[in-house]
């Protein structure tokens, strides 16, 4: 879940509207494929189109591109930050040459369809931390072994906490579930909301409460691998079902929800950022994408992060990560050599490490320096040791309105119905995509 996709959720219709409009238009463009190609070689200068999906780093990449062009005068790079163009580009057979996207279910779908070129021969691939490369590979590889994307930025999420409130109440960062509950009780007794809940924006419930508890208490990747293997034959009684695997985690989710401030149901993400930055709660179940907003709301706020402990064994504690950006080259690009040079440049330590330091994320390089940013350094151990998981919500096909189900579960507290609905939805999608 990249910050970009979050901002897209804040305005639900705009990007999807563009995408839809593009899709509708693209249907007519099929016979015209080949028209409108903007990349290619002219006068010895190769023009590359580089698509990235985070509006907040457009200026940053413009600078990177300028530096790259100064070093490579025979290549010109155009930045395209309208991700809605990507699918229509595919339909027109005119996709961008280099693409970076958050790597999860949706991008994995493109990989399965063979949209991206194999990057395993690129020398720079060897400099990537294999654990992070595995996160990409865990979504499936084209032809069994191809590397379709190289991670560029890894976002690690846990519990953001207000250091001042923790110090004032003498609470240490909890390392077990019991300690965590005790900390919540301490804050509650002191009249401070332990956690700031923003239930109105249902994705915050999905990536926070649902993903953290699920990821901390069960092997999410393994679960979904078995579930996918089972296909449309899934039923609530099967050993692979949601009902039989998620049930033990649900009470903890409800317990987390109960520690939220009063009226959490009518607060959204923006309200949450403003209120938490002003010290209206001790903890906030958000990832690094919220940090810049929190600091913008109150530049004196002192923040830290820790992975949510969900069991009483500190060794089980894991952070939620997502490959926030992964670089790919489209398979049919006529400018393969130039595209590879650009990807190589982006993955040079000075570029990729600087980007991640600036954006409170983790560099994918093996020998990247340790993160010193105190806002996220609490997650360093988890990331370094590879004790992390990709959120359960990211494994769902987008046609399942999962966030709505999570929200409904938190409101009605009906776990059985929630899990039965997930089993049902999963089976129906498997049924209709299998045909």
């Amino acid at each position: 879940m990249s910050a970009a996709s979050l901002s897209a959720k804040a305005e639900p219709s705009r990007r999807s509207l563009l995408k839809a409009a593009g899709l509708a238009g693209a249907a007519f463009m099929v016979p015209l494929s080949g028209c409108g190609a903007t990349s290619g070689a002219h006068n010895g200068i190769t023009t590359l189109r580089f698509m990235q999906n985070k509006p907040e780093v457009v200026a940053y990449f413009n600078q990177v591109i300028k530096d790259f062009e100064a070093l490579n005068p025979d290549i010109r790079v155009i930045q395209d930050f309208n991700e809605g163009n990507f699918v229509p580009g595919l339909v027109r057979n005119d996709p961008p040459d280099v693409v970076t996207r958050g790597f999860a279910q949706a991008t994995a779908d493109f990989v399965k369809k063979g949209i991206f070129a194999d990057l395993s021969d690129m020398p720079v691939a060897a400099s990537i931390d294999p654990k992070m490369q595995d996160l990409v590979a865990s979504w499936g590889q084209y032809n069994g072994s191809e590397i379709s994307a190289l991670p560029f930025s890894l976002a690690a999420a846990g519990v953001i906490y207000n250091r001042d409130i923790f110090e004032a109440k003498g609470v240490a960062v909890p390392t077990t579930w019991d300690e965590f509950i005790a900390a919540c009780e301490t804050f509650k007794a002191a009249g401070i909301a332990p956690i700031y809940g923003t239930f109105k924006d249902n994705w915050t419930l999905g990536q926070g409460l649902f993903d953290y508890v699920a990821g901390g208490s069960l092997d999410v990747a393994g679960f979904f691998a078995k579930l996918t293997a089972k296909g449309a034959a899934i039923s609530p009684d099967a050993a692979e079902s949601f009902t039989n695997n998620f049930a033990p985690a649900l009470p903890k989710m409800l317990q987390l929800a109960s520690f939220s401030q009063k009226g959490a149901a009518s607060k959204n993400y923006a309200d949450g950022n403003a209120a938490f930055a002003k010290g209206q709660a001790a903890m906030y179940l958000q990832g690094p994408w919220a940090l810049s907003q929190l600091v913008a709301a109150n530049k004196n706020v002192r923040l830290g992060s820790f992975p949510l402990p969900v069991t009483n064994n500190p060794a089980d504690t894991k952070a939620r990560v997502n490959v926030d950006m992964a670089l790919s080259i489209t398979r049919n690009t006529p400018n393969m050599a130039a595209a590879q040079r650009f990807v190589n440049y982006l993955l040079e330590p000075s570029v990729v490490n600087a980007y991640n330091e600036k954006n409170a994320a983790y560099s994918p390089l093996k020998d990247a320096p340790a993160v010193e940013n105190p806002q996220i350094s609490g997650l360093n151990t988890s990331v370094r040791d590879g004790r992390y998981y990709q959120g359960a919500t990211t494994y769902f096909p987008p046609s399942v309105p999962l966030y709505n189900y999570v929200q409904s579960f938190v409101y009605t507290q009906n776990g059985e119905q929630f899990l039965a609905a997930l089993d049902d939805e999963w089976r129906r999608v498997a049924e209709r995509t299998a045909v």
Partner: protein
Amino acid sequence: MTTTARVAQTARPAGRKNPTPAPATTGTFRSKNKIDPTYYWMVVPVLALFAFFITLPALVGVFFSLTNYAGYGDWKFIGLANYVNIFKDPAVLQSYIFTFVFALTTTVVVNIVALAIALGLNAKIKWRTGIRTVFFIPMVLSALIVSFVFNYLFSNTLPVLAERFGFTPLATSILANENLAWLAIVLVTVWQAAPGATIIYLAGLQSVPSEVYEAADLDGAGSFRQFLSLTLPLIMGYLVINVILGFKGFLGTYEIIVGLTGGGPGMATQSVAMRIFSGFTGGDYSYQMANAVIYFLITLLISVIQLRLIQRRGVSL
């Protein structure tokens, strides 16, 4: 539902009473098989644009509803499997129930409110023009903006007020309540849609000659009796138009829900249009296309029934 369509209705309120007499003399001056090409110039471009931008995409959609197309990549024919799956999907069924309950409720409320406002605005009250203008402001505001404003009111202002006055049912946002959220959507939709209906009713009320009321006064009918036995029957055509246009528009409800609840809380306020649209972003293109085709057939059926109703009433749309 465009408001312009409603305004256009008011431009010819007398259409059914004074049908334009056919120019009977034309035939004698011009040979029967020769039609002025101007008419073709008027019709054909529009027809071509309509066919290319509306009909053709719709047919493409119908075609893809028979495939497993995700919007990109490979696809193959899967026959009617999408349609079969739609009928087995409780989430889709729920969205249909919500949409129809919503459309029925909203149509009734909009027409009651609009008729009441129209009666008030038609009476000889002070500052009538000014008040009319105020009532029509909601019509010119974008539904999305209106719903974002109401979203803020429901989530922040209303709970604070309710808490201050000790009115607990409203102390948490009704948008967060699975059973009440749809009422908020009805309220905002009514607020937005009532002015359009009011205009049509006003036109209708102005077409009623004042003599009938004078006669009723002489006969000793009270104002309620006058409304029931005179006003209502005389503006029945306008009521039918409002109900039909309104119902059709509310079936396609989308942006107000997006602005208010986004389909939540939970799955409580997912309209059919939202489900269909989710197919574009969700890789479920062909499946939701099948849903769209089914929904088209249902609305078509309703439209045919309504047209029959109109014809019986002698109203022309």
